[in-house]
């Protein structure tokens, strides 16, 4: 009587549904919409779906992997033709991907990958790569010599880990670059401000700041400007509208553009192909771009 197989799956009637009547129904599970980055990603997907006349069902996991699993369970109840997943966590998403596999619904991962299960395609830019790009940019600007502050994202979040990892892969090997403070500001602009204020108090010299996202970078920028400091290199991540404007205005030095809108669009396009049985690439990279003035 005991098993670890979902007894509800396998009855093949599901497979008939949806595809017959012309409209394609796509499920999209987003890690969190409490972050402009993902809002833009969703907007991109929505726009593309509207243009094509697809039905798009979106859910928001609020950064909780187990909520995401429930979300996907709920999506799978709704006769979708394809599942787009933006995992909260790449490991934890595996069982949800397997659920979709069992239900014969194709899965496409977005922004973050899945460590297991069958995935038709993965569309993303690479956070580790982005971290490296920042490391290289800062090293170059400083001539491999200077004191750097790192504002970390939410402790334990994958973006925090991966961006930090890429960044450290570059700067840790350089003797001239010293990380004088690394503190979390939880991807939040207000905390970026107050944590930076405090760091300024305790650090005699700061040459550069790497914030794991633009929100924190903009907060840190306010703290520096309020102190009348303007020669510090500030680099963020995401290329949000605010940040790009700050870079263009010369207040910020750089940000990494992940092109979330493009990720969203291309996710829908890929889903269409998969549903129609066309072949797609396993990894569809969306290039990162270093935005500077």
């Amino acid at each position, binding site marked *: 009587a005991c098993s670890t197989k979902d007894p509800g799956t396998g009855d093949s009637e599901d497979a008939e549904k949806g595809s017959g009547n012309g409209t394609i129904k796509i499920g999209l599970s987003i890690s969190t*919409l409490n972050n402009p980055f993902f809002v833009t990603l969703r907007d991109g997907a929505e726009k593309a779906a509207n243009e094509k006349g697809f039905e798009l069902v979106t859910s928001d996991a*609020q950064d909780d992997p187990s909520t995401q699993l429930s979300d996907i369970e709920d999506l799978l109840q709704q006769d979708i033709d394809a599942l787009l997943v933006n995992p909260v966590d790449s490991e934890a998403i595996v069982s949800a991907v397997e659920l979709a596999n069992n239900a014969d619904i194709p899965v496409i991962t977005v922004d973050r990958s899945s460590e297991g299960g069958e995935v038709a395609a993965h569309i993303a830019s690479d956070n580790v790569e982005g971290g490296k790009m920042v490391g290289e940019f800062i090293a170059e600007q400083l001539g491999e010599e200077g004191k750097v502050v790192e504002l970390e994202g939410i402790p334990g979040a994958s973006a925090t880990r991966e961006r930090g990892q890429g960044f450290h892969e570059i700067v840790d090997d350089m003797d001239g670059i010293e990380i004088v403070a690394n503190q979390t500001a939880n991807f939040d602009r207000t905390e970026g401000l107050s944590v930076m204020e405090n760091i300024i108090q305790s650090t005699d010299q700061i040459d550069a700041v790497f914030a794991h996202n633009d929100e924190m970078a903009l907060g840190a920028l306010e703290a520096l400007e309020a102190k009348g400091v303007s020669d510090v290199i500030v680099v963020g991540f995401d290329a949000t509208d605010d940040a790009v404007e700050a870079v263009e205005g010369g207040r910020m030095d750089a940000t990494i553009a992940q092109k979330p809108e493009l990720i969203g669009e291309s996710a829908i396009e890929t889903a269409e192909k998969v549903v129609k049985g066309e072949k797609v690439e396993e990894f569809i990279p969306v290039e990162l771009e270093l935005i500077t003035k």
Partner: protein
Amino acid sequence: MKNYIKNNLSIIGPLVGLIIFSIILGFMSNNFLTLNNILNLFRQVSVNALIAFGMTFVILTAGIDLSVGSTLALGSALTAGLLTSGMDPLLAVLIGLLIGLALGAINGLIIAKGKVAPFIATLATMTIYRGVTLVYTDGKPITGLSDSFTFEMIGGGYVFGIPFPVILMFIAFIILYFVLRKTVFGRQVYAIGGNEEAAKLSGIKADRVKIWVYSLTGMLSVLAGIIISSRLNSAQPTAGTTYELDAIAAVVIGGTSLAGGKGKIVGTLIGALIIGVIDNGLNLLNVSSFYQQIVKGGIILLAVLLDRSSDK
């Protein structure tokens, strides 16, 4: 008979609410009232329900436990550590549950012996346990826990087609229902919440009872955490964040008074189901997540308001 109805009045409100919501959702979405979705719903509810069962005991003593989510995270991270070290899964899970018991006991001790208000005591341990989890996991999920059938069963298994977490939830429910209704311990829980001084004068060792109550909640939180880890085959350092809110909401929607001394665990089960139905239903109806928050808050309010008016 009159007393029987009166005694159970407090859960009639929530029950009627649950039924009404379910019927409405059944009309609005074809997928809602399918067997598949109902099993799915119950499985989703089981995690919150287990935590909320413990929270019911805590709230009955006029306490509160904000640390459940952090306890869940720490307990399942440590269990995951044991699993990856190759320990027998069953043993690891048992040790994990004991860890939950101990984390809860720490809460209980601070509250009972340290005379710290439960809200503030568990606010502090919420922060501390989360910090310890992050230190232990170095902020990274622990993965590749176990390939054993036993461990996978906990979160992902089925018995006669019923998801295993649902079975765990019902076993816990029956035991705890019995404890509250039929044992001296249950009586003491109610008495402490009703009038702690009077309870003490009657010779009840209030401190001891409280420590047990928080320990129970800690253990149930870790059980919930292990279910999640088993389903995700990984333990997340940020697991359980804000779970305390859903658990408390379930208890209160179920008619248990935050002032203590009054309430029922059946109510909590219904409360957890109402929250589950809201979450699941709004997803099925494809309500945008921003509006979902508005609707969910509104429904919680409605449920409680309806309940209040049935008091009269």
